[in-house]
């Protein structure tokens, strides 16, 4: 840690960072509750995830205010400037993850009223993968670890691959039995939301990398989501 001439400046920066970590904890808890709601058909967990949004938004506001005050009054330079910027950016990504978790939880409430379907287990597994990414990237943020951030960034392909596979399977289901379209559409959106959460984690990974190394991760992340080009031919069954 570099010594600051004004001691309280270092403390302010650290407090800002701690606040981001705290917000990360809230996002993690909300996302975990949403996945729990899907995996265990737990509507109580779903309600918890839907309600958890307000506090996250509040903290984001506070992070922005504090960061702005820091920028205006202290004019930080070099790593301090990057840390301040990282706090603002990470908070914005975490807020999006919170929104996505809320949306997943809302859909879980609908899904739980329908008969159980095995595919929710595949979604839960995909959710676990995204949760792991979120945990790792927040750990990288608090420990200022660029390598760990880069590992998260490289690992996003795994979630994309599960998403591709689920996407195909859901399309096939819907073609086979149009009565499942309602249910499958919700599942499709849940899968998409989880995949988006993974993407936000890689965004945070980029922020962490920049904060520590002052450089950028390569512009082209290994993208494995091919669903925008996927079609499953409609076959009429005899």
């Amino acid at each position: 840690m570099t010594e600051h001439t004004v001691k309280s400046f270092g403390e302010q920066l650290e407090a800002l960072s701690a606040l981001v970590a705290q917000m990360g904890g809230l996002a993690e808890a909300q996302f975990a509750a949403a996945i729990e709601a899907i995996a265990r058909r737990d509507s109580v967990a779903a309600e918890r995830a839907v309600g958890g949004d307000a506090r996250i938004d509040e903290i984001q506001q506070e992070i922005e205010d504090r960061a702005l005050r820091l920028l205006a009054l202290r004019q930080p330079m070099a790593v301090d400037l990057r840390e301040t910027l990282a706090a603002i950016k990470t908070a914005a990504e975490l807020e999006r993850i919170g929104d996505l978790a809320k949306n997943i939880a809302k859909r879980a409430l609908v899904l739980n009223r329908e008969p159980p379907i095995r595919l929710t287990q595949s979604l839960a597994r995909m959710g676990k993968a995204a949760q792991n990414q979120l945990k790792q990237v927040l750990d990288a943020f608090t420990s200022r670890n660029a390598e760990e951030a880069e590992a998260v960034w490289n690992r996003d392909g795994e979630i994309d691959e599960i998403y591709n596979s689920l996407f195909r399977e859901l399309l096939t289901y819907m073609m086979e039995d149009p009565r499942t379209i309602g249910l499958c559409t919700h599942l499709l959106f849940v899968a998409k939301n989880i995949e988006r959460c993974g993407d936000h984690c890689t965004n945070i990974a980029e922020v962490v990398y920049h904060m520590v190394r002052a450089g950028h991760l390569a512009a082209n992340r290994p993208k494995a989501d091919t669903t925008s080009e996927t079609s499953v031919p409609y076959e009429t069954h005899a």
Partner: protein
Amino acid sequence: MRESFARLSALAWPLIIGTIAGGALVLFAGPGLFWGVVALGLAVGLIARFVSFQEPILRAPEQAEDDPLATLPPMTRVLLDQLPIPVMLLDDDERVLFVNHSMRDVLGPGLDRKRASSVLRNPHVLGAIAEARRGISTNVPFSLPVPIERHYQAYAARISRSPPVTALLLHDLTVVKRSEQLRADFIANASHELRTPLAAVSGFIETLRGHARDDEAARNQFLDIMGVEAARMRRLIDDLLSLSRIEMNEHVKPEGRIGLEGVVRQAVAALKPLAAQDGTSIVVKADPEVPPVIGDHDELVQLFQNLVHNAIKYGRERSKVEIAIAQADGLVSASIRDDGEGIPPHAIPRLTERFYRVDVKRSREKGGTGLGLAIVKHIISRHQGRLAIESRIGEGSTFTVFLPAARPEIQAKAALPEPVTEML
């Protein structure tokens, strides 16, 4: 009082010794400036030696006040550190003052002086710590969902007002929660998956009681099918039970030192009759330099049995299964290669999902339960390893297991907690 005396005497003794030595030298060698200088040097050297070796003389008094745990008796500290319960002590800024061995196992290394919100993050636990600081002891549930699910009850309490110290204790409830969840999963899976073979068996019983009662040819045929279905149910129950058993212990780190080659050869030996039936040959190539891995012997045998069994099952007839054991970057790898039809790329990420089948009909024909690779995944997860699957349609598939290599034995001994040996 005693400390200041020690400090004084530490400085005084070399001076006295130096002066006596100098005086003696002057007496014996005659009054010469040369010897006087040597005596003075000796005295200065002695002072420097004592000052640098006796740390308490140099330690600034305010540093001791900075650490509220400085007054803790060393034995209490060792006890806290060795306690099998995760313990964390925090000051009023919610900074980590102390974490014990068990807590480091839960949260990882590098926690000292960090803020609680950076190392714990969980909003409920942070809330409990804030409450405790206000003097209200609370306990809240605390789960770590990834990488391996763990459940705790977190207790936070104020243990000292001045200096202000808050303690956080975790009570491990993983086993309880797990058995609850596993029971529910087991019943759900078993009732769902057993329904199909059971329906077949009961259907045939109906028929045998009815119009097939006196038809001997039909009776024999039906009994054969019932036998097959019953065998499938048994396999399914066996697999479900072993999956539950493995999941139950997934959070417990394995402790044995296992040579992978022996394990693989044992698994292959058990499958020899099956391979002979299909005319499949199994070749094991092992690098003799490969270090052992940390693992559970029986689970590792099951892991390789499942993978090799799959390779035999899904390979072509009269084909070859190649197993290679190697090492790289502190990992030991074992790859199992078959020359079967290959797996479509969209199925690969989901192969280890329980009851996921690439081709339902084919899996049924081959007598698969849909749990083999799920069991593999959970065993690898317990061993903190990794599974890589590569496949080309028409050419075959390779399943590679990576397991962390065991460190050399000498180092393992050196890693024993030091304070204890000191105490004894």
